[in-house]
């Protein structure tokens, strides 16, 4: 804080201009400082200014007092979860500084599973890390708790945290009216769980005053407790002036099989795909993208530069309720997927089904489509055990390097079936005389994904000399490291 000090300010002015042009003024003589200043030699104005500056500087320093202000408002909410043990806290600091291997997501997941709160001293680094790593936001927000929300309110850099729903609000209606965005979102979700129609009523009242980006989030939030009675609202949102809102509404309408939207998509889909003879499939892509299609969320041109007709076809398949196809083909997903598609459109149709399976979380379709070349996110629809088994089979059939992308998408730690499959593949590669460095990618993924409990088998593989045992030793070290990380968090 700057306090007015005419004596010092005059010295600064004189020094700025130069004593050659403007000497320093006389100091007022009435106090001790003035008496001392009067004794300063005047032979050289520059020397006199520096002498005075030295005296006044010490005087100022000695006289500076703490200014008074209002005491700050403390964080009102108390986090009752225990903090992480000391050793885990030190580990987190190392992980946040980046130690080469990215074990931060696992640490966070373990801490959450153990019901702990994030150490306050590491909150700034955590909130900053999650600012650029959106995949960590939800879990960081959870671990940071009320203290994290309080802190984020002080720093605009961490505004992302104030936009994430808080857990279990006490008085949702009050919070909905007066809370910050994240609090309102949580309140809305709670209200939707209780009484979806009443919650939508509250939203309708404020709808036009909400910014576009927020309207899109509110539309997505209608996913909680979604029912046919939300359809008129969503239909109306398809005419919103903001594209993000229209897209969000179209996306949600695909989840309402009885809706007018679904009927329109069904109409379009029926025109595109039909059974052909001898297990084939006839494909007729749309001839154009009319206003009605655009209103239903289909973009006129592909953002990635895909040919127009193929793009429209894929968009329609992705937005059509999957149940339509049973009706068209009179068969389940397995048989439909087995039909031969014309080469030109095969990718668009399969990709559309896959997107629909993910959006509509349809396990049957996901199972039918999962396989070589299918998008890895299909696996997220399958139950964890089935997903692991699927990847294990994939490794056995196509080899480890083919399955890397799938493996990165399997939540760690892997179940025994998958862990065994990966270790079997590595062991046979070692026996078969493969080059260890051509498997370094797989080893990194295995280091992150394997259950640390399998370390004994890895140790066994690491016996002896040579490049492979050395590689297995490195893998075992990684597993030991993760085991230590676990033990630290559970404090045993």
């Amino acid at each position, binding site marked *: 804080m700057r306090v007015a000090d005419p004596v010092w300010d005059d010295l600064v002015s004189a020094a700025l201009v130069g004593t050659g042009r403007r000497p320093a003024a006389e100091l007022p003589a009435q106090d001790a400082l003035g008496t001392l200043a009067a004794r300063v030699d005047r032979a050289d104005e520059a020397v006199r200014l520096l002498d005075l500056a030295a005296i006044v500087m010490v005087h100022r320093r000695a006289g500076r007092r703490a200014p008074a*202000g209002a005491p700050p408002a403390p964080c009102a909410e108390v986090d009752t979860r225990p903090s992480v043990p*000391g050793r885990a806290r030190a580990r987190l600091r190392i992980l946040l500084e980046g130690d080469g291997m990215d074990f931060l997501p696992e640490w966070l997941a373990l801490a959450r599973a153990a019901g702990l709160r994030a150490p306050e001293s590491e909150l700034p680094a955590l909130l900053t890390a999650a600012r650029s790593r959106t995949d960590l936001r939800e879990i960081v927000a959870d671990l940071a708790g009320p203290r994290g929300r*309080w802190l984020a309110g002080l720093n605009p850099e961490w505004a992302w945290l104030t936009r994430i729903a808080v857990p279990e609000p006490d008085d949702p209606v009050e919070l909905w009216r007066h809370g910050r965005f994240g609090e309102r979102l949580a309140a809305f979700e709670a209200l939707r769980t209780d009484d979806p129609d009443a919650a939508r009523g509250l939203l309708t009242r404020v709808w036009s005053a909400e910014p576009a980006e927020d309207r899109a989030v509110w539309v997505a939030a209608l996913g909680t407790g979604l029912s046919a009675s939300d359809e008129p609202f969503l239909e109306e949102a398809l005419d919103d002036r903001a594209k993000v809102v229209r897209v969000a509404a179209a996306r949600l309408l695909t989840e309402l099989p009885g809706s007018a939207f679904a009927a329109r998509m069904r109409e379009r889909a029926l025109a595109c795909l039909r059974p052909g003879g001898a297990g084939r499939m006839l494909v007729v892509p749309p001839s154009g993208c009319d206003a009605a299609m655009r209103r239903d969320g289909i973009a006129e041109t592909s953002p990635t530069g895909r040919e127009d007709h193929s793009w429209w076809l894929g968009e329609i398949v992705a937005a059509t309720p999957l149940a339509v196809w049973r009706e068209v083909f009179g068969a389940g997903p397995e048989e439909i997927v087995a039909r031969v598609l014309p080469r030109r459109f095969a990718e668009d149709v399969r990709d559309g089904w896959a997107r629909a399976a993910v959006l509509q979380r349809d396990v049957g379709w996901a199972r039918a489509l999962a396989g070589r070349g299918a998008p890895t996110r299909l696996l997220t629809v399958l139950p964890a055990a089935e997903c692991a088994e699927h990847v294990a089979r994939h490794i056995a059939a196509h080899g480890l390097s083919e399955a890397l992308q799938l493996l990165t998408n399997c939540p760690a730690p892997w179940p025994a079936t998958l862990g065994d499959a990966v270790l079997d593949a590595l062991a046979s590669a070692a026996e078969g005389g493969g080059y260890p460095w051509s498997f370094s990618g797989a080893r990194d993924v295995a280091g992150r994904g394997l259950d640390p409990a399998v370390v004994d088998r890895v140790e066994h593989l690491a016996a002896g000399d040579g490049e492979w045992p050395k590689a297995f030793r490195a893998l075992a070290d990684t597993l030991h490291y993760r085991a230590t990380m676990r033990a630290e968090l559970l404090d045993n």
Partner: protein
Amino acid sequence: MSVRARTVTVMLERWTAEQVLALAPDVASGKAGSRLAVPRPWSAAGAAEFAGGAGAVWGVCAGSGATPYRTVVDLTGPASQCSCPSRKFPCKHALGLLLLWAADPVAVPADATAPDWADTWLDGRRARAEKAASAGSAPADPVAARRRADQRTAQVAEGAERLRRWLADRVRQGLAGTEREGYAMWDGIAERMVDAKAPGLAARLRAAGAIPASGAEGWPGRLLEDYAELWLLLRAHEHADDLDPSLVAGLRARIGWTVDAEDVLRNAREAGTVVRDRWLVLGSRDSTDGNLTERRIWLRGERSGRPALVLAFGPQGRAPQLALPVGRSIEADAAFHDDAVPLRAALGERAGAPVEGGEPTGVGPEEATLGYAEALRSEPWLEAWPVVLADVVAVPEPMGWRIAGADGFWLPVDRARTGEQALWRLSAMSGGVGLTVFGEYGARGFVPVTAWHEGRAVQL
């Protein structure tokens, strides 16, 4: 059951990982060390407690080379020895070994018997410590030493005269326009000061050179303040013969004379002014100037209540050898330099390994400013004074960060020496409710160094 007198043996307390990592010379070493904190590479590892509370940890680490490294740590220093070629102290093996010891009682069992190679080194250290404690040695050739000292005095006097003329020229011509000068002007005069064996003046000039270049509002005032500070030192140096010798000691330190810690200890032993106390390690901070790393370690005597500042240096990019764990306390001798307000000290004989220290008592922001003013009265060129603040929070305000007490009185933060992360960390730990914070308060504001949160010391 019969009651028998028995020797009380205190189990050697394992450190926490945080305390070990506080010893790391840099972030990279800490990371490398934590990767070595797994049982595999280690064999023949163990720890033991010796007479007088001293303790040691040792182990053999298989590295990439054919010969494994032998690592031994004397917890009393703490000091370490490793057969690896690293020039860092402690090296990653020593850190890894300590981390493993902290985490894993199976991998590093307590009450083990030290192997011969570890014993030899530990014995050597003990012998040297005893010898240093019992005897002091006089300089080898007093006449030559005297001549070198005179030579330097003359060189510094000449450099001081040159700097006086330079500063006078600056304010005669006016500071306006210096913001367009670039660093070359200050580097030039700073280089002259290095040649004149006055590195302290050189460092101040380089710091001053950064002010106008920053273009921040109010730079002329801050530049004049830096010039005034240099001027004060030069004037005092000019009249050193008329000043109290204790004032001259501090002045010489600021200009760039260094005093050998061994000399300080020897003098204090001869004069009987050694202070034996249990010293709480309040904080530790490294700064680098060119090739030299300076570590400042602040202590507070638990019995005497005295503050002490121990300096350690690491030349050529090496970390200083002396490292003390923040938040713990050590029973040790301290010898204070002969300063007007005693603060700088050299550590002498230590008894036992560091043990967990408590949370220090502190004062409010108002008393912190009074404490600095009081110290300034004895030594007018003091830039800052260590202080433990009680019950304070860090508050981001539009005009800058505040360190505020529960009563609302607050201190500004010296942002040139305080990172954003440290302040947010402080804010996060407090949640708006007061914490105990150690730091330095002075001419440019408060610099937080350590905070106590839920009973433990956290380096900021």
